[in-house]
């Protein structure tokens, strides 16, 4: 079993390292950014049971923070990333503290409403450059000139490292005592409270962490694509990240990564279809909610379990 895992791990690592020589690096980097974004969203929904329908506000504003710091203030990209993460976390602290005062479906509506407020703010604010977006963010070398980022392939490895950092951070959160308590609150809040855990504090912390990681994804995307636009703050983007996590499988740690790659690939191939992409995305939502609520990874895992399970069951008879 563990031998199998090591083989799978090695194959994945080799694929990740070799990928930019076989596929278009910018596409891969974009997909990695969205994968991290979807993982951050899933941390909140899958493990804390809180569905945010406004995660684009962290993803999008972090892009603006990054762009402003790097372009207007001419600072190194590391500080830009830091500003993006910090800004998203601060926004997460404020909106999260308010949103966790309501539960379930209201929570989703409140986050959606706050995201819309941030969107309207971004449309009007001068530093976002409105409809034009913040364009031509320069790509500067990282670590004081050690890592040149003009070359897409070099930048790919940087983005891969950022993604892995975020991914393992989430992995650590989930498997720490903090993650266990979060799951307990998700499954039965009253019981967790009666055991002496302050549920709201844990929820808020999870919300801020998720926001910060979404910010990391958003500012990394701005670093790669060199622009930040209103699209990344819009309600459509909030819906897209939900779709990615849902396609891959909620509450599984690899699911959102798979879902992000599937959706980004689909958008890439369907770019010429225009508005029809919306129809297809909507159809995927409907099909998954009606028939495949576990998502790709969840359904596959279940199929694998069923395939390997019958043998001991047959022995019992």
């Amino acid at each position, binding site marked *: 079993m563990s031998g199998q895992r090591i083989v799978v791990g090695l194959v994945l690592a080799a694929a990740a390292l070799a990928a930019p020589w076989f596929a278009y690096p910018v596409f891969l980097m974009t997909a990695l950014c969205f994968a991290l974004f979807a993982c951050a969203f899933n941390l909140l929904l899958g493990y804390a049971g809180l*569905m945010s*329908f406004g995660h684009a506000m962290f993803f999008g504003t972090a892009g603006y923070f990054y762009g402003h710091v790097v372009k207007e203030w001419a600072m190194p990209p590391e500080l830009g990333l830091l500003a993006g993460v910090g800004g998203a976390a601060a926004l997460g602290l404020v909106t999260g503290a*308010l*949103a966790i*005062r*309501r539960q*379930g*479906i*209201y929570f*989703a*509506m*409140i986050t*959606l*409403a*706050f995201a*819309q*407020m941030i969107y*309207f*703010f971004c*449309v*009007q604010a001068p530093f976002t450059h409105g409809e034009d977006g913040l364009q031509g963010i320069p790509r500067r070398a990282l670590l004081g000139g050690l890592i040149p980022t003009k070359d897409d392939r070099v930048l790919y490895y940087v983005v891969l490292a950022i993604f892995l950092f975020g991914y393992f951070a989430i992995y650590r959160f989930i498997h720490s005592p903090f993650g266990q308590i979060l799951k307990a609150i998700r499954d039965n809040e009253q019981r967790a409270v009666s055991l002496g855990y302050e549920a709201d504090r844990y929820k808020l912390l999870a919300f801020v962490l998720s926001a910060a990681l979404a910010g990391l994804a958003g500012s990394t995307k701005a670093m790669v694509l060199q622009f930040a636009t209103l699209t990344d703050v819009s*309600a459509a983007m909030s*819906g897209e990240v*939900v779709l990615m996590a*849902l396609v891959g499988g909620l509450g599984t740690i690899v699911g959102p990564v798979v879902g992000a790659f599937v959706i980004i690939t689909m958008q890439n191939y369907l770019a010429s279809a*225009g*508005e*029809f*992409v*919306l*129809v*297809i*995305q*909507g*159809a*995927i*939502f*409907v099909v998954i*909610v*009606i028939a495949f*609520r576990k998502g790709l990874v969840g359904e596959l895992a279940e199929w694998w379990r069923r395939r390997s399970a019958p043998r001991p069951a047959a022995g019992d008879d």
Partner: protein
Amino acid sequence: MAQVALGLVNGAFYAMLSLGLAVIFGMLNVINFTHGAQFMMGAFAAWLMLGILGVPFWASLVLAPIIVGLIGVVLEKLLLKRIYHLDHLYGFLLTFGMALIIEGMFQWRWGSSGAPYPAPITGGTDLGFMIMPSYRLFVVVAALVICLATWYGIERTKLGAYLRAATENPTLVRAFGINVPRLITLTYGLGVGLAALAGVLAAPIMQVSPLMGTNLVLVVFAVVVIGGMGSIMGSIVTGFGLGLVEGLTKVYYPPAANTVIFVVMAIVLLVKPAGLFGQAK
């Protein structure tokens, strides 16, 4: 003062839409994200019927809600009824997907830019302090009548009593021989029809475009959070009230007019998390 009166026009739409959301949520336990798309379909139905068949506005006011409401009934029978036993979130996601499909198809066929719908009533009415376009005045009055009629239907009639009872305890109501699944379908059709009716009323004011509903429904979600979905009258009062607040903001600090409702939502969450008319739950 003029802006405040015009704020009432927006408030009329907030009230009608949040009322429909509340009615549907009460019975189906689903937040109908498709509400904005159905509002848009109402406006489109009126626009298409006028353009192709020459159906006048007043006939559309009756026909469009029936057509869109029937489409809603089909959607409920095909899709929504399969998810009532699941968490609320799935209803939200399902109706979100349905909204994407509907809006995508309209955008694909008619593009994103809007088309104008001629106002059925022209000219203005002198209210003493301002001259208000007569059609807008009509919208406010019509919305009030529609809202009060819905309130009356739910709170004061026999069918309404069945509805409220079925919301409270569906199993027991079923034991009395009332067809609850049909009642649920009917409620959804009614709620959707209400959205379409608001859409027809909006057609001469806003541009008829595929995305006219989405932008509105996002604000209406905030209205629903502020008011709470527990009370029908609460939805009506909150809707009109927030329209006024928005109108006032346009007078005193125009840049915040778009966001003021969300700010009110944040304040309500701080002071009275359950919403102005909601029960703590």
